[in-house]
């Protein structure tokens, strides 16, 4: 029996697998199709203080090996989330929720974090800060594209919450290291990576972008090697635990992340095609640990031979 438990910056997870924010709704949509017992946490869709309508349609385009989306963070505000969504989740799902948050200003990030924290709801296990959505230009810049601005917003959220704080980083930077350091110095408990990679798809017959937002973010199989490299770089720069995601379609993909330095992994776009992928990753991971003599999945973290 392999010990599958991990600790992600203070969040105790019964398995090292969660769902990537934005691919799993508010956590209850996949009941009946996904084996929730194989999940250590569910990461919910991003919320902010006020409700947000998201982008115009069409919001996505399928590409070979992935998906380009510009949903635009449509979501319920924090009040509805705490009054309705979380109680409904708690009635139906027994694994902790990682709540993904975003805002248009430093104060807005801190506000949503404070309200989530002050609610003291037992299902809310951690906060994941989205500072890297490519599809919403709130406040005139993306918080994840400047280490100083990143440090400022992470510090503000850190002061607003006692919950484990995970910061989700942008992949499209020259080096991930200054961002990793900024999060570490600002008091983050963990990092998550990678968000989608900015992308564009063009309808050549109409000579128009296929997505109403013109550009979107690429997820899916194709981004996996890029994600592994960023996890590897980040792990070499910090002791903070890393929640890795990007193109996990089978156990092998998750194992690569662990070897590169991940403490936990998130399955995302693959679930749309195969809701059973969570179970397949769990089973394959346990099997791998057994075959390679790892008694606990946490021993895999950074076990890369170089």
């Amino acid at each position, binding site marked *: 029996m392999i010990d599958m438990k991990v600790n992600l910056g203070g969040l105790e997870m019964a398995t090292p697998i969660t769902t990537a924010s*934005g*691919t*799993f*709704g508010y956590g209850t*949509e*996949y009941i*009946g*199709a996904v084996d929730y017992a194989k999940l250590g946490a569910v990461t919910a*869709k991003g919320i902010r203080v006020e*409700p947000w*309508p*998201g982008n115009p*349609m*069409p*919001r*996505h385009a*399928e590409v*070979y*090996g*992935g*998906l380009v*989306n510009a*949903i635009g963070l*449509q979501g319920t505000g924090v009040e509805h989330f705490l009054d309705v969504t979380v109680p409904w989740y708690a009635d139906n799902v027994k694994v902790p929720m990682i709540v993904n948050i975003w805002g248009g200003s430093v104060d807005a990030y801190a506000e949503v974090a404070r309200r989530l924290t002050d609610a003291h709801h037992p299902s809310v296990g951690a906060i994941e800060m989205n500072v890297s959505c490519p599809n919403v230009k709130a406040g005139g810049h993306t918080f994840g594209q400047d280490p100083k601005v990143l440090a400022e917003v992470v510090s503000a959220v850190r002061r607003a919450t006692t919950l484990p704080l995970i910061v989700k980083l942008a992949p499209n930077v020259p080096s991930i290291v200054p961002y990793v350091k900024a999060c570490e110095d600002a008091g983050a408990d963990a990092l998550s990576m990678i968000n989608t990679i900015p992308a564009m798809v063009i309808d050549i017959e109409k000579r128009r972008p296929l997505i109403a937002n013109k550009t979107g973010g690429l997820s*899916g*199989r194709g981004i996996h090697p890029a994600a592994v490299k960023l996890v590897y770089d980040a792990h070499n720069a910090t002791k903070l635990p890393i929640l890795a995601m990007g193109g996990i*379609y089978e156990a092998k993909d998750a194992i690569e992340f662990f070897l590169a330095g991940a403490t936990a992994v998130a399955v995302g*776009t*693959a*679930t*749309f*095609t*195969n*809701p*059973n992928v969570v179970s397949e990753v769990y089973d394959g991971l346990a099997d791998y640990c057994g075959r390679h003599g790892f008694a606990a999945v946490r021993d895999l973290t950074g076990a890369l031979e170089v």
Partner: protein
Amino acid sequence: MVDETCKVLEHEDIGAGYRSLALAAPAICAEAQPGQFVHVKVPALEPSALRRPFSIFNADAASGRLELLYKTVGRGTLALNAVKPGDAVNVMGPLGHGFPTTCAGAPLLVGGGFGVAPLYFLARMLKASGAEPKLFVGGRTKADLLALDRFAELGVEVFTATNDGSAGVQGLVTDPLDDEMIRLKGEGKAFELFACGPDPMLKAVALRATGSGSKGWISMDRHMICGVGACYACIQKTVRGNSRCCIEGPIFRAEDLVW
């Protein structure tokens, strides 16, 4: 909702780019309601390809036979053409909110092209509830009027319209529909509208429902990803804001839609 691996029973080319696909899907058929859809993993596409959603043409709970009626419109449906009897196809469903299967007045079913797909199952269930549905179906040409024999077998009266006049009245499906609505109004009889088809037709039917003070049930089709409400890709504007077709629909009340 179940995730079922289904054996292909029949797969027929019915002309003009339309196909009918029959699957052995007892678990899905046991739950299915008219207007719901299934999300199909197309075997010939690359393994990471998204699923494709299809209306349920018919779901027979007794035999477990699930029938889909589709048009080849893109990469996914083209790849689906390749499945043969005996092949295994993974199907998630039934998904979404369907049509009501009881009706306070006369049920008037309005379909455009392969938009008749969910209306056969609906007509069958309405018949079973003792209602007498009538079908109004339109297309560009005669070849776009689908499954009329199946509706005839059910004993459903069918009114047809084609743009080129090759079958039924020349014009739009709303022409014979208007005649029937006027007739029913004149007799002081209530009716409800049930529609599936292209957007301009749906808007025309929805406005007739709200304008006549009747109930209207409109099947909205938007490009989907997950099919279960998780991703927020398939948005339709409604009085409640941006609603997800896959879970809040695909059947919406006419008065809730914002065009």
